[in-house]
């Protein structure tokens, strides 16, 4: 993937807060990243780590209230999406930035035919006539590998299996040839064999269409198979960010390291006992003043309690937000 190309999406210092009746929840804190044309950026994290909220914040999909994007800048094609008005956002959503969501069962409207839902973005953004949109919708279904595409346009979502529905979702996201596709845990709800099908499909579509993809998941295995770069999130912030191979071979943040050790595999050696990250993920009632992973971290230093570590480069195109240096076992020079 071209390393030097200008990013299609450039996120700087994003901060999103939920206002709840029991106070504020700082779900996303100072998240910055960029996405280059044609690359696949994997975002890994557990529930509550802020990965979905980050992506939804980009494009104004969070319900407000309770969500509120406090700070930051999201540059897409020279436009700051955070300060753009609703109409601009709407003309970008679905046209230039496509979305695929986790649960294909609930993400499609049950009372409209698949064809109708597929044609909507085509008619809205490309101004196609009904007939042309229908033809294009059939093409799209074919593209995502749904057999007998033209006749299935008349079917309702519940007549498709889970895997097929996710294909429909992908077709819908790709309808207007977006530059960016944001996939939020698109295979989590699927069985492994179906997940494998979808992963193959995405790889192939990337080859054919060449859009940039942000792939959100909690499954490191999935990331390992498809991503170019990986961003690990914890407690609403990016804790580590590296090219995929670098991350798996040379993880720097204790959380990434623990995560990699925790996961059992079906191949290779079977560990007699699983590594465990003790404790629970944090809840951010305020802007974190210390490292959010500190209570669960086996390498916590004094400084971790006093400051929230910034992201520092630890290798080529590799940065981590941690005071601890795995090589020395002591503090990192920041």
């Amino acid at each position, binding site marked *: 993937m071209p390393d030097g190309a200008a990013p299609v999406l450039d996120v700087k210092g994003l901060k999103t807060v939920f206002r709840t009746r029991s106070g504020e929840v700082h779900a996303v804190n100072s998240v910055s990243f960029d996405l280059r044309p044609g690359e696949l950026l994997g975002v890994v994290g557990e529930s509550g780590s802020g990965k979905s909220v980050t992506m939804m914040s980009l494009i104004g*999909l969070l319900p407000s209230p309770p969500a509120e994007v406090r700070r930051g800048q999201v540059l897409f094609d020279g436009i700051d999406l955070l300060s753009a008005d609703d109409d601009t956002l709407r*003309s970008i*959503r679905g046209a230039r930035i496509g979305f695929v969501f986790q649960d294909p069962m*609930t*993400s499609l*409207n*049950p*009372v409209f035919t698949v064809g109708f839902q597929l044609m909507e973005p085509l008619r*809205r953004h490309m101004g196609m006539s009904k007939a042309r949109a229908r033809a294009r919708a059939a093409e799209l279904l074919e593209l995502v590998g749904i057999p007998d595409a033209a006749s299935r346009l008349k079917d309702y979502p519940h007549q498709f299996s889970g895997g097929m529905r996710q294909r429909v*979702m992908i077709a819908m996201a790709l309808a207007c040839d977006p530059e960016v596709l944001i996939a939020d845990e698109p295979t989590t709800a699927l069985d492994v064999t179906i997940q494998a099908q979808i992963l193959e499909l995405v790889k192939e579509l990337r080859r054919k269409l060449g859009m940039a993809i942000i792939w959100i998941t909690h499954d490191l295995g999935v990331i390992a198979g498809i991503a170019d770069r990986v961003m690990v999130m914890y407690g609403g912030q990016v804790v580590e960010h590296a090219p995929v191979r670098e991350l798996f071979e040379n993880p720097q943040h204790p959380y990434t390291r623990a995560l990699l050790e925790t996961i059992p595999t079906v191949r290779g050696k079977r560990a007699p006992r699983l590594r465990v990250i003790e404790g629970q993920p944090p809840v951010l009632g305020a802007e974190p003043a210390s490292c959010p992973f500190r209570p669960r971290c086996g390498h916590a230093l004094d400084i971790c309690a006093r400051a929230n570590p910034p992201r520092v480069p630890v290798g080529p195109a590799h940065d981590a937000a941690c005071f601890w240096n795995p090589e020395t076992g002591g503090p990192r020079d920041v």
Partner: protein
Amino acid sequence: MLNYTIRRLMFTVPVLLFISFIIFLLLDLAPNDPTGNLPMTIPPEVRQQIRESLGLDQPIWVRYLLWCKQFFINEPLNIIEQWFGIQIGDGDRLRVRSWATRSPVVDLIVERLPQTLWVVGMSYVVGILIAIPIGVVSAYRQYSWFDQIGTFISMVGFSVPTFFTGVLMIVIFSVWLGWFPSIYDTTLVVEDWASFMQQVRQMAMPVFVLALFNAAQISRFMRASMLDNLNQDYVRTARAKGLKERTVLLVHVLRNSLIPVVTVIALNVPQVFGGAIITEQVFKVNGLGQLLIIGIQGADIPLVQTLTFIFAVLIVLFNLIADILYGILDPRIRYD
């Protein structure tokens, strides 16, 4: 879907028979007596003769069976004859007769249907037309001033009895302003613009009063249903497609939210026919509700039995229609 419909339809037969028996029994036990409203000058012996001439001294099961035969066999045949102008059998069938008017009950009902449909039906339609937008906006702007005011008005509409709002409107619009007539003219035939306007004017107040009442309930349902659907994943999908907020709301959310509401609307239709008793009374729209109340007050048992049974049939029927509508609106059920 067809099987389902047929199955439900078949199921209604025993239910209806049972309901008919209960209704018959209930009305027969009721202490009302058709001679109750006769003037005091008619001596008791004459009253007794009148009662006997009405067949009141027969055992109850005989009267039930006769009534069943009448209602399920003879009356439908009569109606068919009337509609198609054909003669089935000897045509000299007995009719279910009202005690007060001595005329066939079915004829009375047919005569009453137009005004009930016009006024009460129209008010229901108007109520729905008001309620749905209010429900939609209230839900979309939950806890906004619009929502608060909408809630307030619908609660007032729900909680103030129509005998009060009706009279209030008459005093304001008929007596003080003289805009609308206070008495509904059931004989008015709409044939030109003037008579049409007159019809509109005389319908205005009863339709408004009832519509307010209906709208109050339906808008509450609509709001709740919209709120349920607004948080669904597919709404997010629709937004992610860059659809206009209007489209998201009016196409995606509305269609889904309407499913339970349409069921509620269908289930309440039978009340349209019988539930507007007080409003009909207040505005002198002599429709089915007024017929029922006259029947009850005058202890016109055949009339009340037939009317209530027709309402029962309607309730069962609209239960069925609600189920079928549900199927039509919700494809998930349609293909089950």
